[in-house]
């Protein structure tokens, strides 16, 4: 067995055995050298994925906290406020705190993303299928009720939380089409997080281009 990929036996969306926290965090190795700041792009990615999860299901943030509790990540993410503070490390946020995530905090967030995504696997597949079918027939994405609901919620969340002074954010805000594309892209990334080693894949992908 290789060292960097370790796997939970019998993965299935319904069952989630609660391994203890050190084991889980150890699953995600530290990639950057000590003291190097967490990459900005990665912080953006994590927050956007969490945003997509919120848009998928109402009450998303409560469910995220429940995941944190179940995965025994409460030392890192104790309550709603600390979760929000960690998410505000995203430079695009209005309430950007100009702080960086520590590796442990980032790992905790990634684990939450994975856990929530796994629970929403069925919905994710459904939406992706709808999207693919609509595109193959050249129909607008709003035709599917559930998909358009997701897109609308995503756009609303994005507009209300992201700092419009940033050029990228402004460009997104001006184009409904672009925001929709972003939302669908995030759906596709989320489905990859539902796999057996989804969390690890996500974790490693965050550092693409950041290491020599």
């Amino acid at each position, binding site marked *: 067995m290789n*060292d*960097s990929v370790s796997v939970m036996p019998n993965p299935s969306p319904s069952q989630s055995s609660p391994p203890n926290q050190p084991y889980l965090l150890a699953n995600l190795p530290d990639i950057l050298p000590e003291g190097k700041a967490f990459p900005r792009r990665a912080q953006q*990615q994590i927050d956007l994925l969490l945003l997509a999860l919120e848009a998928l299901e109402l009450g998303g943030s409560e469910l995220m906290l429940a995941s944190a509790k179940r995965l025994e990540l409460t030392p890192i993410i104790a309550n709603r406020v600390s979760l929000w503070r960690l998410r505000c490390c995203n430079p695009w946020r209005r309430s950007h705190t100009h702080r960086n995530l520590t590796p442990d905090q980032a790992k905790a967030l990634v684990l939450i993303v994975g856990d929530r995504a796994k629970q929403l696997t069925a919905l994710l597949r459904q939406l992706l299928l709808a999207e*693919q079918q609509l*595109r193959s027939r050249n129909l607008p994405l709003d035709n599917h009720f559930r998909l358009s609901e997701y897109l609308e919620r995503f756009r609303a969340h994005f507009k209300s939380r992201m700092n419009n002074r940033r050029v990228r954010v402004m460009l997104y805000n001006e184009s409904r089409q672009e925001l929709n594309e972003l939302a669908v892209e995030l759906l596709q990334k989320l489905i990859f997080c539902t796999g057996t080693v989804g969390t690890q894949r996500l974790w490693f*992908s965050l550092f*693409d*281009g950041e290491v*020599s």
Partner: protein
Amino acid sequence: MNIFRQYSLPNCTLILEGFDDGTGNALQTLAVLSNAECRFVTSRQSLNGGKVFFDHLVRAVSEYAQGLLSGIHHPVDAVQENGQMLIEAMPHHQGHRLLWQQSGAEVADNATNEVYLTTAEIFDLTEAIDQFLADGLTLPNFVLPLAPLSRRYCVPEESLAERVTPPLIGVSGFALTAFALFFAPIPDRVRPVEGDVNGSNNPTEQTTNGTVPPGAEASGADLDALVTKVSEIDDTLSLMMMQSYLYRTLDGAWTERPEGQMAAYRLSMTPEGSIVGYQPIDGTSPDIVNETPLPELSYASVDEAIANGKPVGQFKVVFKDKVLQVSPWHGFEGEVEFDNSQVRGDALRQLIRNTRVAITTALGTESVDTSQPLRYSVGVTDDGAIAFYISETSLAETSVNKTPLPKLIKPDAAGIVPGQSLIPTKPLTQVNVVFRPNGVVEVSPWAGYR
């Protein structure tokens, strides 16, 4: 005996066929792969191949999945000898294309080697491969560690040209500004022209120059002795008259003016117009004096002046860059006042009238070309002769040749004779003369009509 392993996902089924390596484990281990097949049930496509195909498939799919997650394209390894697996995204979100090319002797023509997959299918394929990798009983030595993409392969979003442009513009703008400012002239250091108010000690030059008339270049000690023994003239009019005489004399005598010359001297002059002595100041070297007109003038001896006991005037003379500057050593104190005549009443009015007539007649039909009024104080004797003029403003001084005043003055009428006296000896009426831009000449008594 063949062993089959199957990993089923909603969109994709991965079937591996092979056999045991015969080590006699209790559990059957698929140690040698003979065939691998991917069946995409929804789109009814399938991929097929042997170990080589499977090797490439696993690597390519894993890298591609990481690329989808991060948004950064993961490059495929260079074409290897035995084949190439290419996965790429289709434009306009139409899905992904997977292309397998096997080179070498065994090219299976009947197996399809190009498929078009949706994202969900790609994910299911990835998941199937991940499950295979996790499976300890199938090809246990096949490991594929995940690793982030090195920066070397990461192509930045903006090209190098775009990223370099702003700093380049900034640096070149800075360079251009510096270059342009290079041509801005360095301001000249203006040495103060007025003499020191307190007459600080000047560096004395003890060396004598053979061509200088003996006795003319007084040493500092001599001049100081002169000043202490003999009083200085401080009357403004006298100083003005002497200054103007000195200026005219030096200006006329200074025929050769070298470039970039800088020489300054302290001069003493009697009221008759004789220079008693001069002394270099402000670090002027003694050799330069030959390039000034000072050696050519007439001099009285210092001792005679001391013996005479008459007051002398002290002046500072500067020869600089072809320009002559003469000023009293202590500057002018107070305004010019020299009205000491007794002419009054009607005679005064007549005097003024005559003066005006004289000026306007001399002006003739021309008018003085000026945009500002030119003011002069004119000294008129009791007989009506205009003895001298004093310019009230520097503009008046420079424009005086546009007026008829220089032609009209008769200094000797007031007893001003260089060599005898530079200061008027006869009583004078001080008259204001103003040449206005509209051609009017105003003549009025300085002290008013009395």
